[in-house]
């Protein structure tokens, strides 16, 4: 005859075990529910933050010609005119680094006429196509058409050309 030893539990011990199983199962259920809640909530938060940033960029791109750093103030009746000279000169001003919060791209491009040099430098300005003031990685951009105005030495007068302002906002992951 095999020497078996059968464990004998009392009714009380059995109930405690049952209760512990139920408690552990309940806690696991709560934990799963919490994980679901947190993942859904934070997924929503990310979307909310992105839509906030997008809204801010859209508003800023609409109002960019009115900001003191770009406003063309020689004429009093041109709301869409942008001072190209100031835009070019602000590019290398260290004080303005980080001034436009949450903006990942701020670029001013000439639409017409186009020149052979793409990015403006102190050698090529004003015969160049674009001035990039801010450029970070991972952005979604929006554009607004503007008039790029400056004093033109060949004309000896003020000259305005068609251009656009491109602004991008930084994604939450980016």
């Amino acid at each position, binding site marked *: 005859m095999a020497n078996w030893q059968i464990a004998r539990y009392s009714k009380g011990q059995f109930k405690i075990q049952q*209760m512990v199983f139920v408690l552990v199962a309940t806690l696991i259920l709560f934990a799963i529910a919490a994980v679901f809640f947190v993942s859904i909530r934070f997924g929503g938060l990310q979307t909310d933050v992105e839509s906030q940033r997008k809204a801010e960029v859209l508003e800023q791109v609409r*109002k960019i010609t*009115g900001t003191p*750093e770009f406003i063309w103030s020689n004429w009093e009746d041109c709301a869409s005119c942008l001072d190209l000279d100031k835009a070019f000169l602000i590019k290398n*001003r260290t004080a303005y680094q980080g001034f436009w919060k949450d903006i990942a791209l701020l670029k001013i491009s000439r639409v017409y006429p186009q020149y052979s040099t793409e990015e403006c430098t102190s050698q090529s300005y004003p015969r160049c196509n674009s001035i990039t003031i801010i450029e970070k990685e991972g952005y979604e951009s929006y554009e607004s058409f503007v008039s790029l105005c400056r*004093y033109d030495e060949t004309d000896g007068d*003020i000259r305005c050309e068609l251009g656009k302002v491109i602004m991008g906002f930084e994604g939450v992951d980016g």
Partner: protein
Amino acid sequence: MNRKGVEFAFSWIFAIIAGAVILISAVYITTRLVGTERRVGDTFIASELNTILNPIETNLEDSKYSTIDFVDETRVFNDCSTAGTFGRQQISTASKLGIGKEFGEQSVRKSSYNKYIFSREIEETSSKKMHAIVRPLFIPFKVGDLTMLYGKEYCFVNPTSDIEDLVIDLSANGVQNIGINITAELSSCPEESTTVCFNQVGCEINVNTQARIVSKYDFDLYYDGDSLMLTAIFADPLVYECQIKRIMGRAGELAVLYAKKSQYVQGSGCSNNLQGDLQAFALATSVNSSREFVQNVIPASENLEDRNGQLANCKIF
């Protein structure tokens, strides 16, 4: 011996203790989650407030008015810092939920460098509304938009004709309630409103248009022009002085930018000789108070405006 007693099995005691622990934990976690959610909500309100203040900024307009509607009664915290070149504007909110009488915890602050909000340090909504008036500031070129944010009613006693015209204009001839009443007598002011006297005393805020001083809470705030007069009326003294320093920081940077532009266009054959004046103006913008601003910056600004105005095609601003 008859020993009668209530039989209380161990399993029952265990179930009661475990149940109590679970219930208390659930209540605690729920309370914390509600608090966190409320703070997240308030942070979004602060962020949205920051965003919706963008469209009411001016371009070529003289001034703009807008009402901001909140879902609950809300406090807006206005923090101004002068650190760095441009200083920093921070706004945060705390809302009052229908079930509680107290305002929630202050939300996370939303920062910006190009906004200037003039309000009390803690501004409260009235009937879940807040008023915003935005006016551009030119000294002598555009330096920024001044946003006046207020929830409670104001009563202007005998204001100047320019201020009266502005209030009438913004309220669309009285059709829209912009939270500002105009009266000839102090006694005619509504009880709840903050009273503002022009060239007389006896109000909570007194404006002396000759000396260009707004007096409130034992502080004298110096201003120049109607835009800054209004901002001094609506802002707490510390907020006003801080924002003046911030605006001057930006004015100084813009003056340097215009000086560079002046040099560049001069090289292109557009003579203006404004560099010296612009550099002098940039130096004058290093001020520590509104008094210094009126004493040092305004004369330099007027000189600069005259010099620029004399230029024909070669105007720098």
